[in-house]
C-alpha cells in the first residue's frame, strides 16, 4: 500500500501519527483516504479551489508534483510526502 507522510505541523489532526498507509491508486485518492481516517487533514493541504495551499508542497517519491493536478497514479511502494514551509516570525 502507498504511504502518505504527514508533516509535523499537521500531526494535530492525526494525533501524532507520522505516516499513514492507504488503499489508493492516485495521489488524490491517497489524500482522500487520509481524510477518511483523520477528518480535517485535507483542508490543511488543499484550499477550497482545489489547489495545494501556499505553504504546502507535494512530492511523489521525492519528485515535486504540480500544485493543481494530483490525479497521478501511485504504486504500492510509493511514498507521497506532504511538506510544509518554515515557521518562525
Amino acid at each position: 500500500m502507498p504511504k502518505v507522510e504527514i508533516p509535523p505541523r499537521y500531526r494535530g489532526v492525526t494525533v501524532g501519527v507520522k505516516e499513514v498507509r492507504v488503499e489508493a491508486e492516485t495521489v488524490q485518492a491517497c489524500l482522500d483516504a487520509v481524510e477518511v481516517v483523520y477528518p480535517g487533514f485535507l483542508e490543511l493541504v488543499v484550499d477550497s479551489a482545489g489547489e495545494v495551499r501556499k505553504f504546502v508542497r507535494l512530492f511523489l517519491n521525492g519528485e515535486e508534483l504540480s500544485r493543481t493536478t494530483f490525479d497521478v497514479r501511485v504504486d504500492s511502494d510509493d511514498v507521497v510526502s506532504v511538506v510544509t514551509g518554515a515557521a518562525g516570525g
Partner: protein
Amino acid sequence: MSETRQDKIIRVDMTDGQILVEPMPEPWRKLGGRALSARILFEECDPTCDPLGPGNILVLAPGVLAGTSAPTSGRLSVGGKSPLTGGIKEANVGGNPGQDLMKLGYRVVIVTGQSADSEARFALEIDAEGVRVKSVNEHRRKWNYALIEDLKEVYSKTTSFISIGPAGELKLAGASVACTDADQERHPARHAGRGGLGAVMGAKGLKYVSVDPGRSPVRKPVEAKDWNALSKKFSREFINGPGKEPFPKWGTSVLVEEADSIYTLPYKNRVECRSPDVQTLDGMRIVESFETRGGGMHNCLKGCIVRCSNVVMDEHGEYKTSGLEFETLALLGSNCGLAHWEDVADLDRLCDDVGLDTIETGAAIAVYMDAGEMEWGDAAGAKALLHEIAEGTEVGREIGNGAAAVGRARKHHRVPVVKGQAIPAWDPRPIKSVGVTYCTSPMGADHTAGLVVELGQPHEEAVATSQDAQIMNAVVDSSGFCQFLMPNLDEVRTFYSYFLGEEISRDEIAEQGWQCLEDEWAFNRAAGLGDVDDLMPDCMKEDEIGPQKLVWDVLPELVEKIYTKPAVFRDELFSMRPS
C-alpha cells in the same frame, strides 16, 4: 592565523564616560552573540542587581560570523538583566550594526554604570578613528524614525545605528532596542524586542550607538578556499531548497492563515486560537498591495539571502513600515480582535517608532481589552494607547510595562505570560514542545529560544524536542546566522572550522550551546528565579481551544527533565534546523 587574534572589545562606563578598548580575552574567542552575552553577564553582572540601576550591564555582541562573507550571518545579540522577567535576557536582531561592529574588529560592547543625571542623554560613536561618548541632550524623547532622520544628516552614509525611542527613555519593561536596516534609507525597523532591553539602555542614558565601518573589509577566514566553497554550496542549496518559498517571496506575514488552520493564531487574549478575520489579516493582502502601492521584499542586513522583510507602503504609496511579521499580525492583530492588516501595520510603525516590542505590547493591549477597558477590535483606541505610552501617561506606562503589569493593575485573571513575559503567537496548547520552551528557557516565553512546530507529540518526546531546539537555537543565535537561514549544527560548526582554522567537533558545538543555557540558568537561579517561575499560567491550563479541547497539560515533573544534560547529544540535534 585567525583574524580573531586581533579582535577587540569595548568597555564603556556610563557613570563617568570612561572607555576602555581591550584585546578580546582568549577564553571568549570562540564565543559570540548570545553565548558571549551570557558568559559576560554570568561573570561580570550581579544577578541580584536592579535591572534599571547602575549594576546592570548592557551587552551588544555580534555573532561569531558577523562581518564575514557567510550568507545572512550578521545578527547582533543585545543582552542584560531583563526588567520584564527579572532574569537574564538576550534579544537577537538584524539590521546592519552587527556586521559593521565586526568589520571594525569589535567583538562586543559592554556598557556598565549609569549617569548620575537621569535626564542626560549620550551617544556612543564607534568608527575607524576610535570610540567616543558624547552628550546628545537635544535628542531626548525623540521617536526612532525622527532620530534616525536627524542622524543621517550628520553621519556618513556608511553608518548604522542602534537606538531607543521614548519607551526606552521612560524605562518601560516592554521597550525595545532598534537597529537600522541595511538599505540607504536606514529605517529603524529591526528590533531587539523581547525582555525590555530598551529600558536597560535608557536607564544608562544611552540614546544611540553609531557604527561606521567606513571602508573596512569583510573578515577573512583562515581556510579561505574551503570557506568559499562551503559558502557557495550552502547558499545554492538554500536558494534552491527552503529559500524558494515562502519567506523570500512573501515574508513571515503569510503565516497568519497557516497558523489559524492549526489553532495557533491567538484571538482575543487567547480565548480562541482561530480568528474570523484571518483573510483580512493574512500577509497575502500585504503582498497584493505591492502591485498597487509599491513596496516589496528586501534584506535587512548586507549579505542576506533570505530576504524575508517586507516593505509596506500606505495608500498614497509612501513608506509606512518594514519587517511587518507574523508575530506582530497575531499579537497586535487577531489577539486584540483587530480585523485588518492595515491597522496592524500602523501599530507596527508606532511600536517601532516609540521603541516597543510588538509581541509584549499586543499582549498587554489584549489583557487591557479583556479586562473590559476597551472594546475588542478598537484599532483607533489601540493607536491612541501607543501615543499615551510615548507621552508617559499613567495608562501608557501600564501598557508599556507589558501584559503582566496590565494584569496586576486591572486585577485581571487571564494573563498569558511565563516569567512575566508575554507568550508569543505559537501556542503551547497544540504545540507542546514550544510550551516546554516557554516554561524552561532562561528567556521566559520566547519562541525564538526553541520552536519546533510539531503537533500531536507525546509529552516525553516534546520535552526532548524542546531541549534539542533550545541547544540548537542557542548556537545559532551565537553564530550571527539568522534562524530563517535554517543552518543545522553540522553546518554551523563547519563554517566555524574554516573561519577559525581549527576543527570544531560535534561535541564542541553542542557543548557551546549547552554551556550557554547553563550560564543563563545559573544567572536566573542567582537572581532568585525558581520552580514557580517555570509554570504555565492557569489560563493556558483552563481555556480549551479547538475541536480537541486542547489545554496545557504537560506535567511539571516532566518539564523539568529539560535541565538534565543528555549523556550523549542525540543525532537529531545535529540535523535539526531552526524554524
